[in-house]
């Protein structure tokens, strides 16, 4: 009898702690999602709607509209395209170069590699602000169209400049990410390939690169988000309005006299969409890469 009572007591205790746990979890979810929810709610209200209600409330009857989304999409579409044109090459380039340098710094043996590695690590901590002025001066001294004599370079100069800057700036963090992964590769496996007659380049191409898929996913997602979300470099380095990226365009959605909150919120969601798509596409690989599986 007492055993049954014990069991009942245990069950009750479990239930109570469970309930508390879920309550806390739901509270945290609500806390984190509240800004998103209010943004989404605001973006589908008319101007009268968002003035009359609190941000969290759903649109009042008759004040629901998708017009803000329509306008935001129209005004950001060129910025979206520009951002994609800039961010994809920058991301791929810094991931590839980061992978290559991490391989050289981790799996090959040469004199002075520790010193070089320290420089890479230092590069991770360079604050953007400290390089703005020299960077601006550097790019004004470089004549891209004459360096790369291809027809399209002239009209995309701002984007190419920005893309190359992000690619270069991303190499250190990509190198560090790849290095931590390459350090876990079986050294004997690489020696086995060497014994089979593979050169350093062959080992990279046939062994290391194919085994890097999970860490590429991590690096691509991370780097794409970084590059996509950047506003500082974009404002400083791109002057040509036709080369404007989405973050700059989003910033300009802010009206000069009236705050069109619904438009700004819709614009923010439109600008964030591609990073979401990237997470969905590479999510599984990302989880594997973070967990350190190969």
């Amino acid at each position: 009898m007492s055993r049954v009572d014990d069991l009942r007591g245990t069950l009750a205790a479990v239930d109570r702690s469970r309930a508390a746990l879920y309550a806390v979890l739901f509270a945290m979810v609500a806390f984190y999602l509240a800004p998103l929810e209010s943004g989404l709610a605001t973006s589908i209200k008319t101007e009268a709607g968002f003035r009359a209600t609190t941000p969290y409330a759903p649109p009042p009857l008759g004040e629901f509209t998708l017009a803000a989304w329509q306008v935001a999409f129209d005004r950001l579409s060129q910025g979206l395209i520009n951002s994609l044109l800039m961010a994809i090459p920058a991301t791929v380039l810094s991931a590839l170069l980061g992978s290559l340098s991490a391989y050289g710094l981790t799996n090959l043996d040469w004199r002075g590699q520790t010193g070089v590695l320290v420089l890479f690590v230092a590069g991770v901590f360079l604050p953007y602000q400290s390089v703005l002025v020299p960077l601006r001066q550097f790019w004004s001294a470089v004549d891209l169209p004459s360096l790369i004599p291809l027809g399209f370079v002239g009209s995309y100069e701002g984007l190419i400049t920005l893309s190359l800057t992000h690619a270069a700036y991303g190499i250190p963090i990509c190198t560090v990410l790849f290095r931590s992964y390459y350090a876990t590769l079986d050294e004997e496996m690489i020696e086995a390939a060497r014994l089979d007659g593979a050169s350093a380049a062959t080992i990279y191409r046939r062994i290391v690169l194919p085994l890097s898929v999970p860490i590429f996913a991590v690096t691509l997602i991370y780097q794409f988000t970084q590059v996509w979300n950047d506003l500082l470099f974009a404002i400083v380095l791109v002057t040509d309005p036709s080369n404007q990226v989405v973050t700059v365009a989003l910033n300009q959605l802010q009206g000069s006299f009236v705050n069109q909150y619904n438009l700004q919120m819709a614009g923010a969601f439109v600008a964030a969409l591609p990073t979401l798509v990237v997470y969905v596409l590479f999510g599984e690989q990302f989880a594997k890469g973070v967990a350190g599986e190969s």
Partner: protein
Amino acid sequence: MANVTLEHITKRYEDVTAVDDMNLDIEDGEFVTFVGPSGCGKSTTMETIAGLTLPTEGTIEIGGRDVTDLPPKDRGISMVFQNIALFPHMDVYDNISFGLRLREYDQEEIDRRVEEAADIVQLEGMMDRMPEEMSGGQRQRVAIARAIVRNPDVFLMDEPLANLDAKLRVHMRTELQRLHKELDTTIIYVTHDQAEAMTMSDRIAVIDSGQLQQIDPPLVCYNEPTNLFVAGFIGSPSMNFVEGEVTADGFDAEHVTVDFDPDAYDVSVGDEVTLGIRPEDVYLADGVESVEDPSAVVDAWTDVLEPMGNEVFVYLKLAQDAELRIDERDSDQLLMSVDPDVEVEEDGEIDVVLDRSRVHLFETGSGDAIVHGLD
């Protein structure tokens, strides 16, 4: 096929000498095992032969050709690693054929050789399996096939069985011996497991502190160890050691005396020597007829019994005084093995004798052997 010669091989890292003036002559077709405790330099020695590490000094010849400065791929060797080290993203066929494809052999030749190698290690029908779908033993076979397929002059094997479970290890041991018979290629094998070394090798090279201690056939290492290190390392359980000194009557220690004529050997009265005797050469004093030449009786006290099935290991304490028995000095202990049908009780007094013809004497200071078996 080729012989391997190491001359004065030394490998120094910044503050450690991993290999110290190693000289070795390995015959064509021989199975030589490098054995020693971890960190003794056996793997480094193998890496210098493979070319994965360059020696600080000395030369290496394979098949009469100086390969000291050649890259690994041009030395005519293949290597099997402890971690097995398969390429995880390639199937069995691609793993085995990797080196051949790099060298751009034509497809028919590659197929023929892969099939042959897979046949030798019994991997038929597994060509499109991925490493992650295979058991440890199967993976090790793939690794061996990958080594065979290159048709090397010398096989280097660095603890290839260390990561396998005990049963599989014994099985692979016989397979490697069969492989050696079949291929008739020189094999250099590194292990810290003296049982592997004893069972497989033509000769064992015992290495300690980067130095070659002895290179001889297994039974010679067992019966005539050149020094205390080899005597203690080869054989399981280890040889018993008792420290004492030479008197006019022979060997004398606190609890053990063994008579001999000091003039008959290279010792003089007062020398500090260590007596070595293997567990199977210690006998009960009762019914000792089987020993032709027993030593004086040693009074002992049984401590722990370890029945192994085919024999029983008896741990003996030599100090009779209960207080002294707490002391754990090696010289006060003796391990003997007896037949399982002999009745021995735990915690009882017991008289034992040593087989004089199986007694080893070593210089205590240098550890060098003086004599194996007293007359």
